[in-house]
């Protein structure tokens, strides 16, 4: 059962081939036995999952089922889940039982989906390898000596290892697309404002966006149908109709204009990734698309701009973790300053502290103009690059990452090298655009992702473009040999 896609499982539930309880139990059993190899879950919610499955079976019998009713999925441990520990991968929230549901969780509950548990992640979503998790790194099912990417590494590993058919992730600088690429699955970061951020623990508010991770574009569409929509509780969510993302998946790609930014095909890129991506582009040409070289001239500036803006916002967003109201509190604080210093010193890991310090510095009096305001100006330039590019093309393509999955520990002592792995994904967040990663081959036996970047609110088109490729190829069906 674990090899079936979300769509196939939904089908099986609808036609009574199996019950949600049977399906849920079988996946829970599989997670229990297999996840020790991947560490992809932080919490497994057995009891709640089975209760939800029973309720789903009732709904299905009553003919009251929605498309995902009874289908088990998992959620990145960044989404507050009522009554369930929501740790955000941090010691700081190891004892935090969320008293409310994120809007995304609420939407899946309404749809009748079953929540199997909360997946591993980089601490507060800060990382590209899952190594900053308080719960230890999630491991890449293709090679457990390697990282699954991050920050949504647990969701990616769980989907790649066939522990769950789909999971939610969040993407601030590539945190859905990069792990999707490194684990050979399909992931979509929607347009900023498309999916509610309410209840999604903030890293960098102006960049964070939740999205689906699954094995196919078709499944991502089913997930996004539940996740997308305006939320009055999130002032940055956008009041705009949500299309049926499954409706246009099969639309032909004749006349599709693909832009290939020359900046995404030069520099330090693994040659096998280069060739896998080139092959995928050829496949698109075979499907009726035309290809054009474009330029995104400010690509090189995206990492420095991002590493000012995101830490600046994070330094403020993470101030609430002070040991006063919830979460970790240091032992026996002597006074207020001691409470703050030790709570935060002991509760946060190194990467989080590094970014809080960078952000605090960048916002400080005397540095604000030189760093924060300049980074915001660069952000506008990057947005303008995309606006100009989309005058000529419908979709932009390139490699999701410059390299395949790296070894655990390989880059932990070199944060900048780690940051550079996100060079192709970060600008998409800075511009607020939707982006996808789909598997298109292998480099040294490790999965390669192709990134698709769309215009604002063009998720349906991206899913269609990804789906047509997956109809014509079988990269997305490949599983690690021992899974």
């Amino acid at each position, binding site marked *: 059962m674990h090899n079936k896609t979300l769509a196939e499982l939904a089908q099986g539930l609808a036609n009574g081939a199996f019950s949600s309880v049977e399906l849920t139990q079988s996946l829970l059993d599989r997670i229990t036995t297999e996840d020790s190899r991947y560490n992809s879950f932080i919490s497994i919610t057995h009891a709640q999952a089975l209760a939800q499955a029973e309720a789903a079976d009732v709904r299905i019998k009553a003919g009251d089922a929605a498309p995902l009713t009874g289908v088990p999925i998992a959620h990145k441990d960044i989404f507050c889940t009522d009554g369930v520990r929501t740790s955000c991968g941090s010691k700081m929230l190891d004892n935090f039982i*969320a008293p409310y549901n994120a809007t995304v969780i609420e939407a899946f509950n309404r749809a009748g989906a079953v929540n199997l548990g909360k997946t591993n992640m980089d601490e507060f979503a800060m990382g590209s390898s899952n190594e900053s998790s308080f719960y230890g790194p999630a491991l890449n099912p293709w090679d457990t000596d390697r990282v699954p990417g991050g920050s949504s590494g647990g969701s990616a590993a769980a989907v790649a290892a066939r522990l769950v058919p789909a999971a939610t992730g969040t993407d601030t600088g590539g945190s859905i697309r990069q792990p999707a690429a490194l684990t050979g699955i399909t992931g979509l970061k929607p347009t900023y404002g498309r999916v509610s951020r*309410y209840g999604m623990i903030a890293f960098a508010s102006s960049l964070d966006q939740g999205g689906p991770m699954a094995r196919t574009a078709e499944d991502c569409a089913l997930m996004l149908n539940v996740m997308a929509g305006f939320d009055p509780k999130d002032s940055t969510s956008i009041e705009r109709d949500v299309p049926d993302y499954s409706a246009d998946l099969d639309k032909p790609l004749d006349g599709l204009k693909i832009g290939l930014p020359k900046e995404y095909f030069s520099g330090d890129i693994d040659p096998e990734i280069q060739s896998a991506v080139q092959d995928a582009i050829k496949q698109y040409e075979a499907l009726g698309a035309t290809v054009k070289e474009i330029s995104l001239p400010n690509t090189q500036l995206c990492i420095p701009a991002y590493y000012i803006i995101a830490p600046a916002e994070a330094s403020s967003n993470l101030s609430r973790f002070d040991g006063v109201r919830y979460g970790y509190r240091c032992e026996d604080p002597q006074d207020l300053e001691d409470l*703050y210093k030790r709570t935060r010193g002991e509760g946060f890991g190194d990467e989080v502290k590094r970014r809080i310090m960078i952000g605090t510095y960048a*916002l400080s009096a005397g540095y604000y103009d030189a760093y*924060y305001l300049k980074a915001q100006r660069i952000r506008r330039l990057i947005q303008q690059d995309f606006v100009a590019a989309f005058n000529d093309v419908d979709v932009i393509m390139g490699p999701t990452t410059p390299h395949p999955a790296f070894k655990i520990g390989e880059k932990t002592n070199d944060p900048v090298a780690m940051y550079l792995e996100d060079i192709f994904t970060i600008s998409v967040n800075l511009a607020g655009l939707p982006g996808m990663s789909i598997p298109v081959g292998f480099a040294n036996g490790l999965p390669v992702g192709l990134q698709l970047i769309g215009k604002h609110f063009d998720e349906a088109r991206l899913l269609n473009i990804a789906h047509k490729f997956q109809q014509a190829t079988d990269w997305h069906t490949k599983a690690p040999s021992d899974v």
Partner: protein
Amino acid sequence: MEWETVIGLEIHCQLATDSKIFSGASTAFGAEPNTQACAVDLALPGTLPVFNDNALKMAVKFGLAIDAQIGKKSVFARKNYFYPDLPKGYQTSQMDDPIVGIGHVDIQLKDGTTKRVGVTRAHLEEDAGKSLHEDYHGMTGIDLNRAGTPLLEIVSEPDMRSAEEAVAYAKKIHSIVTNLGISDGDMSQGSFRCDVNVSLRYKGEEEFGTRTETKNLNSFKFMEDAIKLEVERQMDILEDGGEITQETRLYNGDTKVARSMRSKEEANDYRYFPCPDLLPVMIDDDFIDAIRATLPELPDARHQRFMEQYGLSDYDAGVLSGYSDTAAYFETATEQCDDAKLAANWVMGELSKHLNSNSLEIADSPVSAEQLGQLLARIKDDTINGKAAKQVFEALWKGEGGNGEGAADAIIEAKGLKQVTDSGAIEAMIDEVIAAATPQVEQYKAAEPEKRGKMLGFFMGKVMQASKGTANPGQVNKLLKTKLDALCD
């Protein structure tokens, strides 16, 4: 050399919205600690702010009332600092783009002149919670009920030159926000708090001296005292050749002592930046015009109208027009008795005396405006005299005569206070008094004609006594004079 005091004010005015500025929790005062703090106010992970439109409308109302520029694009910014009653670790406020820009108010000075005080800006922000240091055995209790309550911070130009001017300005702002209905202005509950910036310089000098800020003055009296104290302190230092340290000070109104809270060096770097969870607030002329249409009459306009419509003096019109409750009371009473001056005298005299000694607001007066007006109507139509009217007022204050209309008449009736205007009856009483007071009559007769007027008082008193206070004093006076003067011929 003569010193000149320079004062600027920052007023934190709590807006009278039902719910908080960024959450749906209630803003009602006095609930059990932490019962009015929702997930957003507690800053639970993942929660997000949603801006309360009513706070925006109230801020725009204020801006229009002080003739200010309204920010068509205003931006919320985060002011970052750690404090246990600041749940998010930042206060959401406005920095570069406030909702209200440059405006002004006019204050009336004691010498009868008017002075214009500039308002630099007014911006929206959220209040913090409260730290409670008592009753927790060396620990601190945190009450987040107040966290997220909307505040309008109103910043003045350094235009005031004395404690009196500063108080007059603060009172003017207070009367504007209460008149607009955007704040209850209750200073004892912290709805209207003043921070005062004070500096000294030699008269005629352009440069400002180093200033200090005294925070959270929650009564006009404290404010006046604190400023005077600070002016003296600075003057002492400067005259001894010392320098003023830029610092934040705290004034204790009970002990009348101020102390330094923190110096400039200890001040936080608040690391302001635009709040990424809130979009810029965009408003257009239609929005502003719609709010302009809802503006009530403001104190200055009402002041003018009271002088013109009712013929009140500048002073009386000023006192009665400052607050809408007082103004409405006065106007209702006037309507009932058709004598604005009489109503003005009673509202500012007898009524205000009673309210003050009982610490009551006019809205809570046991004597309604209608009741007072009907009582005054009885003075006007000569049913009772002024002395009896005070007795009736006392009775009304105590709730005698029932609460409804006609209470004054009922009391007049029950106490037999109706004025005697029958000349025959009055003459009879006068004759009796004159007959019984031969020595005084003789003195009267012996006195110089121009001194006799003063001597009339004795006979007046006797006659009023005989009538148990019900005789019409004017009539008594007139008849007495005629009869006594007749005896002198």
